[in-house]
């Protein structure tokens, strides 16, 4: 870029500057639900200014751009209208789309500029397409697992880490030789191919319970690759947007890995899904106490304070609307009902909050783990709906447990614990939950939606 810019390039840069400010404000306003919707306006205006500014560039032919924008809109609208239960897979899919854009632009730039590429530029470009490529296939795999097109069970095989490491080393080796010889055009497709393969292998060993961390991490990768693209194109706006998205993904990954008691490096290098392989056999059948919907309704209506603990099982059973009816029925009787949200409950960060908000449960009733944990001893009933590992007291007490040290919701400290569960089968991670055998625990066996529905019917019948 030269010092003397014409008028139009200056206008374009100024529009990009305004867009950058609006993007930052957009994220700032997400700090609270009361201002969050301003954030969308800021983001949308910023986006329109940036795209408008780009179209001001001289010598552009517009018809293909117009067709692509229309096509993208046609695909985007249904993706914006998916059911709230499908939000995790939609998010994974959009990470894939974002990374696809970055990878394609990076590849096109390589072929346009090669062999006239400076060493640093080639290094950044390699980073862009490697991160982008692995995010494309990794996110598609994650979306497939979440949509249950692909098996949700983690697939592990011997030497998995070695294979992954060798692949990554291969990609880096190609990148290094491209940095030294940017004219070696025939090497470039192999680098992309390895990145794409690596993305698939990275997600194969991931199980459903690790999805919140993985989605956050892929979010971070997508952001970093976009920032790298900003370096390649010398676009400040893109560097800023990529840095914002990258830091968002990394912060969420850190929060998620802390909530699962994994170190951040453990997460970065993809050592997910190593929890299984324990427990299972060996335990003789211990007695549990169970209760009927009538008994559960009686206990709940006699309570003053109830905390509901939702988990992925609630989402699977689509029980959130029945839970809302329960919330209404109990609130009407003067029972104080709150919801305890574990950071990794569900399949992505904030998943439970969105489902409960969709069911019209006011957000000030949704309480974070750290804030509500001290209240369980003064709680009459803790009602666990489709959550398992995040309530497992073994994480506090049993040093041999695979989830030992993971922060959990202290439901066992409530006067009475009720757990809605299909059967005594252990949860996804295959870890037995001592909570179910406690003296103050009542198991409510059945489908979450049907069982909550029966409780609601009991409650309304008694006073109706």
């Amino acid at each position, binding site marked *: 870029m030269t010092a003397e810019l014409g008028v139009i390039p200056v206008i374009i840069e100024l529009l990009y500057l305004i*867009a950058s400010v609006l993007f*930052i404000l*957009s*994220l*700032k306003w*997400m*700090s609270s639900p009361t201002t*969050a919707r301003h954030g*969308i306006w800021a*983001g949308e205006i910023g*986006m329109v200014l940036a795209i408008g500014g*780009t179209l001001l560039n001289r*010598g552009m032919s517009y018809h*293909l751009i117009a*067709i*692509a924008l229309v096509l*993208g*809109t046609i695909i*985007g*609208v249904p*993706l*914006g*209208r*998916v059911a*709230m239960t499908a*939000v995790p897979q939609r*998010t994974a899919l*959009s990470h894939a*789309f*974002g990374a696809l*854009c970055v990878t*394609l*632009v990076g590849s*096109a730039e390589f*072929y*346009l500029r090669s062999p006239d590429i400076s060493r640093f*530029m080639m290094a950044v470009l390699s980073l862009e397409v490697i991160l982008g490529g692995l995010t494309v296939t990794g996110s598609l795999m994650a979306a497939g697992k979440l949509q249950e097109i692909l098996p949700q069970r983690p697939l592990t095989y011997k030497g998995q880490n070695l294979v992954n490491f060798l692949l990554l080393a291969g990609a880096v080796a190609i990148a290094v030789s491209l940095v030294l010889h940017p004219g070696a055009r025939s090497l470039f497709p192999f680098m992309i191919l390895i990145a794409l393969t690596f993305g698939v292998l990275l997600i194969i060993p991931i199980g459903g319970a690790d999805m919140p961390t993985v989605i956050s991490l892929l*979010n971070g990768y997508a*952001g970093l690759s*976009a920032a790298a693209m*900003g370096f390649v194109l*010398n676009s*400040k706006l*893109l*560097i800023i*947007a*990529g*840095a*914002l998205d990258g*830091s968002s993904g990394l912060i969420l990954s850190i929060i998620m890995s802390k909530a699962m008691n994994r170190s951040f490096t453990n997460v970065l290098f993809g050592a997910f899904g190593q929890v299984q392989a324990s427990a299972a056999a060996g335990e003789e059948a211990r007695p549990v106490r169970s209760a009927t919907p009538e008994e559960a309704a009686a206990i709940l209506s006699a309570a003053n304070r109830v905390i509901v603990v939702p988990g992925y099982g609630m989402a699977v059973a689509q029980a959130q609307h029945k839970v809302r009816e329960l919330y*209404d029925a109990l609130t009407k009787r003067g029972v104080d009902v709150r919801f305890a949200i574990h950071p990794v409950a569900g399949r992505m960060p*904030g998943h439970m*909050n*969105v489902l409960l*908000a969709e069911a*019209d449960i*006011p*957000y000030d009733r*949704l309480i974070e783990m750290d804030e509500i944990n001290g209240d369980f001893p003064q709680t009459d009933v803790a009602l666990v709906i489709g959550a398992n590992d995040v309530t497992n007291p073994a994480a506090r007490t049993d040093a041999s447990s695979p989830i030992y040290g993971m922060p959990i919701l202290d439901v066992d400290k409530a006067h009475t614990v009720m757990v809605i569960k299909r059967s005594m089968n252990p949860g996804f991670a295959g870890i037995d939950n001592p909570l179910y055998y406690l003296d103050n625990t009542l198991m409510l066996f059945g489908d979450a939606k049907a069982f909550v529905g029966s409780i609601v019917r009991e409650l*309304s019948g008694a006073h109706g």
Partner: protein
Amino acid sequence: MNSSSTLINALFIFVLAGFIGFEVIRRVSPLLHTPLMSLTNALDAIAVVGAIVLVGEHKSTLATVFGFIAVVAATSNIVGGFLITDRMLKMFKSSRPDAQPAAKSAAKLVAK
């Protein structure tokens, strides 16, 4: 301006923007982590500007084809991302103005 000073400028912007991102996003309520992710996804699709230039300048067939697909992918993220974020945020209601609908659905329950 030579290329290495351009590069240093870019690095400054990247690091400073990363700091702003960290400070701003740290303050986002965990309540809104899902909409945060769909919003950053939409904002990240600003990569569309690079793709638009590729298509508009039409320097080679490969660049145009790649750029075209990239514009489609990024645009669908922009449109879909903003749409779903808005839908999600509309659902978040506080209990104070919410008293009425709660009473209504409770009345519905009694009527059954």
